[in-house]
């Protein structure tokens, strides 16, 4: 009797320890989350601050004089002034926002048209040199932009596309990254499904459209989500290939704002943040799935 009582007590202590351990673990894991939130809090509060308050608070950082940066988590006089000016009095901002939307949209649409069939070809068919070409695609996917910069420039220059938005869009359309990601999703489709569709007399294009696209959705959407987050932040390519500032995407505009106009920078940052956050919330689940397929070897 006494023994079992001892045992129960020990068990209780053990479970208590486990709970404590879990709480500790949770606390440790929450810490980095705070790091994530700080920048967002700074941006959002900054966007509501008036011009004078920002100037006073930030001038030590940018002029190196006076004490340290001053920041109130609750602005003294919260105002929508920054947003209002940015949206209604700065046509420039609108143009650049639209540039970003246009370039990102064109690139993603192009990648769909070109990349998905290519991924389908690698996943479903055997043809000459298929392994070699796929390896080539993986290698190209991993080559940093800088290695390809000169070759990109040479071809864009020859085609007369320099300083047009096509200089950014076209090379990105033929990026092999989405092919790689979509390929993983398509590989998950059982061969028997395709075979039975063929026996029923479906053509190859119909099979791709009716079976491949719906069943490979996870891979496609994850490629699109990653693509959006990537191209919304595009910097290297426009910096190198677009000379006219009116063609720039939003990502290059923000750094152009001087610190005296910090209010605009904060408001613009918050607005720039909205589309990726939206896409991120929609595509979050696909981010995991699609990429994991790519790691599986069929």
């Amino acid at each position, binding site marked *: 009797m006494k023994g079992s009582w001892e045992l129960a007590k020990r068990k209780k202590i053990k479970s208590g320890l486990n709970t404590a351990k879990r709480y500790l*673990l949770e606390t440790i*894991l929450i810490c980095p*989350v705070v*790091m*994530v939130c700080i*920048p*967002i809090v700074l*941006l959002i509060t900054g966007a509501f601050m008036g011009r004078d308050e920002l100037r006073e608070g*930030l001038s030590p*950082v*940018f002029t190196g004089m006076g004490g*340290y*940066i001053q920041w109130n988590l609750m602005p003294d006089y919260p105002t929508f002034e920054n947003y209002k000016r940015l949206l209604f009095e700065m046509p420039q901002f609108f143009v650049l926002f639209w540039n970003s939307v246009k370039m990102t949209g064109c690139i993603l649409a192009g990648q769909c048209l*070109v990349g998905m*069939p*290519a991924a389908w*070809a690698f996943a*479903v*068919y*055997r*043809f000459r040199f298929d392994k070699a*070409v796929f390896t080539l695609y*993986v*290698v190209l996917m991993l*080559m940093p932009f*800088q*290695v*390809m*910069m*000169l*070759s990109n420039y*040479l*071809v864009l220059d020859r085609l007369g596309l320099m300083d047009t938005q096509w200089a950014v869009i*076209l*090379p990105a*359309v*033929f990026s*092999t990254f989405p*092919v790689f990601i979509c390929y993983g999703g398509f590989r998950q489709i059982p061969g028997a499904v395709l075979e039975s569709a063929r026996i029923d007399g479906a053509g190859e294009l119909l099979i*791709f459209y009716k079976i491949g696209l719906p069943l490979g959705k996870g891979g496609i959407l994850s490629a699109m989500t990653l693509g959006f*987050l990537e191209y*919304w*932040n595009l*910097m*290297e390519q426009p910096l190198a290939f677009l000379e006219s500032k009116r063609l720039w995407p939003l*990502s*290059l505009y*923000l*750094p152009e704002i001087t610190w005296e106009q910090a209010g605009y920078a904060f408001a613009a*940052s*918050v607005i*720039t943040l909205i589309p*990726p956050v939206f896409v991120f919330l929609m595509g*979050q689940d696909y*981010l*995991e*799935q699609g*990429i*994991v397929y790519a*790691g599986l070897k069929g």
Partner: protein
Amino acid sequence: MRKGKAGFIFLAPSFLGTLIFVLLPFMDVVKRSFMTAITKEGAGMHNYRIIFTNSAFLLAVKNTLRFALVCIPLLVMLGLAIALAMGSIRHMQAVKSLYLFPLAMPTAAVAVVWKMVFYERGFLNKYLERFCTHFGMGMETVDYIGSGAAFYVLAGTYLWKNLGFTVVLWLAGIMGVNGDVMEAAKVDGAGGLQRFWYVLLPDLKGSLYIIVVISFLNSFKIYREAYLAAGAYPHESIYMLQHLFNNWFVNLDLDKMAAAAVACGLFFLAFIMLLQGLWDKGTDG
């Protein structure tokens, strides 16, 4: 598997584009790397000799390698550790989303915040000084972006931005591991560490490959933050290949660029082949 023409047709648009925008011009670059930029005469290995004795190139290579060798293993291992720990906590989904969030933060916005935090009169120094005076210690303020500390700021940024994604990928890999085998190992008396090492880890090789590949891809994009926070000529601890190529491009040093592009391209090719070979061996054997 189907043989025949259909595969070719599906692949054709993509392959044609790759040919026009990547492969053919790259061959042109290879040709140019053996020529002088202006007179277009054969120069043999001259351009290569120049870049490999160029101190800026050597510095950039050193910094880029250092960054990759420090950050990628750190990211991959930290990600695995957090993923393993995260399996057992409540509200996992919400925490996961928060970890992922920096991925959606626009680079330019990050750069604005970084200036506020890491400049000499920024938040970090402000609170460090407050902390130090509180405990009666002296402190010298540092400009974290304009000094050797910039490397660590950049490394931290890379981890901050990519950790969530790495954790999510590891978690997905861990979920895919056969639970029965783990259970069987537990019944057979394998301890936590043994189960991790002999059952879980071998099953995660596919995930490891994809995570290394993605971390490698993203390690080059740190240039965006570096450029926006510190400009085209940052402190020499973070002067990387990306800066160098960009500056050569601006100055139209095309012959050096060609030679460096070919040299770096060959290096990456070797690295990727090595990685693929390891992966093939790991998954087949």
